[in-house]
């Protein structure tokens, strides 16, 4: 009986780590893509994640949950394109200026979300209801079927993105911009639009993660992205900034570490332990897993 219970616990914990690994990968991949093309560590990434969750929550009564998780990333993605054109369209910024710019965007978006919620609902934290109740028995435990759908969607989007990145002209252009912007411009690649597109895609990926995660965390609030951006940045840095494969690998490493530590060690130390593990990666490989 004891062995069986432990097997069940292992199974649901690993399943959950897989789901969160995919969600962290969506976030870290977007962050890494933006850094690769714009050389900007996007601190507004958490705000895009929050906007995705908030828009999806706000649009659900009109569009249904499934319509809302399509619309929210599209809106945030377009907004990302617009912001990139506005801020990087006329001039390039050094890393520090870019960091401050994205920090400013984060504060503005967070404040706008606060004002929106305060004026429309009078409250800053709202419960999110899962679009379906589908408990899947795993021995003595249950695993929520919605999470498996999240894994399927996130996995599908990541695979689709990987296909575009590695097998299409668009992906080729983006890779060229990442490698050498001046050279990319010389060979006729519209660098500004490529950068804006990358920023938009990165923002949309973050928003999709936010929209999907709402029914898991069960709440939306203007500050929900703050913690997320810190972890995402660490994952992207440990993955090797600009390295999509590295970000992907560290996202899974982090998720498995956090879930296993929570389930089998001490929940109070789980996040700190997982972050420490990322720190160890950087200690061993300061340029990150996929960095050169």
């Amino acid at each position, binding site marked *: 009986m004891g062995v069986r219970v432990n097997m069940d616990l292992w199974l649901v*914990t690993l399943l959950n780590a897989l789901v969160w690994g995919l969600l962290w990968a969506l976030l870290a991949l977007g962050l890494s893509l933006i850094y690769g093309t714009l050389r900007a560590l996007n601190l507004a990434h958490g705000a895009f994640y929050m906007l995705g969750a908030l828009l999806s929550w706000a649009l659900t009564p009109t569009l249904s949950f499934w319509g809302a998780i399509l619309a929210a990333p599209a809106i945030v993605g377009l907004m990302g394109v617009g912001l990139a054109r506005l801020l990087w369209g006329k001039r390039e910024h050094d890393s520090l200026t870019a960091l401050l710019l994205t920090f400013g965007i984060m504060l503005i978006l967070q404040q706008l979300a606060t004002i929106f919620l305060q004026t429309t609902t009078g*409250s800053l934290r709202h*419960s999110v209801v899962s679009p379906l109740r589908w408990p899947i028995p795993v021995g003595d435990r*249950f695993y929520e079927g919605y999470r498996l759908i999240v894994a399927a969607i996130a996995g599908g989007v990541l695979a689709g993105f990987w296909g575009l990145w590695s097998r299409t002209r668009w992906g080729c252009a983006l890779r060229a911009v990442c490698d050498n912007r001046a050279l990319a411009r010389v060979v006729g690649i519209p660098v500004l639009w490529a950068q804006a597109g990358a920023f938009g895609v990165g923002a949309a990926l973050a928003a999709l993660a936010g929209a999907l995660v709402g029914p*898991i*965390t*069960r709440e939306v609030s203007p500050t929900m992205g703050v913690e997320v951006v810190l972890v995402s940045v660490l994952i992207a840095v440990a993955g090797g900034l600009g390295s999509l494969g590295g970000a992907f690998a560290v996202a899974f490493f982090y998720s498995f570490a956090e879930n296993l530590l*929570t*389930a089998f060690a001490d*929940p109070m130390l789980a996040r700190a332990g997982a972050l420490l593990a990322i720190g160890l990666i950087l200690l061993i490989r300061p340029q990150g897993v996929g960095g050169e």
Partner: protein
Amino acid sequence: MLTRREFLRTTTAAAMTFWLFGNISRGQAQPIRIGHQLDRTGAVALFGKWHNRALEAAIKLVNDQRGINGRPVELVNSDDAQTKPDVGKDAFEKLVTQKRADFVIGSVFSGTNIATAPIAKSLKTVYFPQGIATEITEKFGNRYVFKSYHTVRAAIEAAHAWAFANLGKRFTIVHSVIDFGRSQAEEWAEKIRAAGGSVQLIPVPFPAPSDLFPIIQRIDLSKTDVLYHAFTAVETARFLQAAFDQNLQSRVKVLGLIEGIDILSTAEPWLEGTYFISGYPRRADQVPEELRDFDREYRRRVGISAEGFSLENPKEVVPIADLFGSWQAVFLIKQAAELVNWRGKADTPALIQALEGLTMPPSVNFPQGAQFLRAQDHLVFHDHYVERVENGRLTVLARLPREQSLYKTSVDYTKEEF
């Protein structure tokens, strides 16, 4: 026949007399200022809003009852205490030193109460904190601090015997590490062990992790009769939803303090069948017969429906029991101030002595029922209730008399100098 000169002389004299008397009477009727250490933002903002409304209503009633010692009472709100101890402490200081509050009622946040208590003593101002962490009437309280509504320890003292007899003695306690959650876990653990039961403690960081699923997985159902939760409102909702995904509500008894869901509607599937310890029933038809007239008047004046919702917004749940802390603090001040004919801060030591050991019969001033204020730790003792969510509505299962919540205190503030 009155000449013009006589007319002018008479009317001028009359006007002078009215002006003079008006000024004298205004001087006599200097208002008594009750300050509210008010959290407008942060985790307890919704509670802050309703406590403020209860204070407005209570003060209006006091003024309808000819004020305190014939003087009108005025509510003075602090700057936003922001659910932050340091900010709340500064707001208290400003209330007393700049806005000249004579008494202060507030914050709902225990951390702020603990930070404020020493300032209340140094400013010699009677303070009625509204958080319910036990420590505010124990090691962090002092002679100027009075608790007009229960603490965690009083609630658990009142309900533990009922819980062991009716729900079981093998507890798993999942709790937030903030004062509110930690003090519940400690109180219960002591009671359970003393009763020969078993307890597993699962502390959860604050703010709680985004996903509570891995935390829920730590609960060992083979060793659990009662799953006890100790979180603030939004986190309680998240925790109980995560527990519902595991079907826990139908596999074990789920218990918590009403403060965890005080502002939540109970018409949710994840609340069905769960148990709560409360200081007062949410629904009017669950209130004991002998208190119903006072209950009706209290609800009407604060703006609460018979089902416990706001009269202005029928979707908004009012933390009805929690508000007694503020409402009754106003009437404690009135009762004690009238006993000692309080005129100003110089009379505060006498007022404190009058409060120590005060008994309050049920009335519209004390609609929660008969109560007494224990002199040693300055805590009010009142009845408690065990409620269960049945068909989406809180239903009273048991009324626990106030004597049952008496516990041995480790302090005696009456021995403290003023």
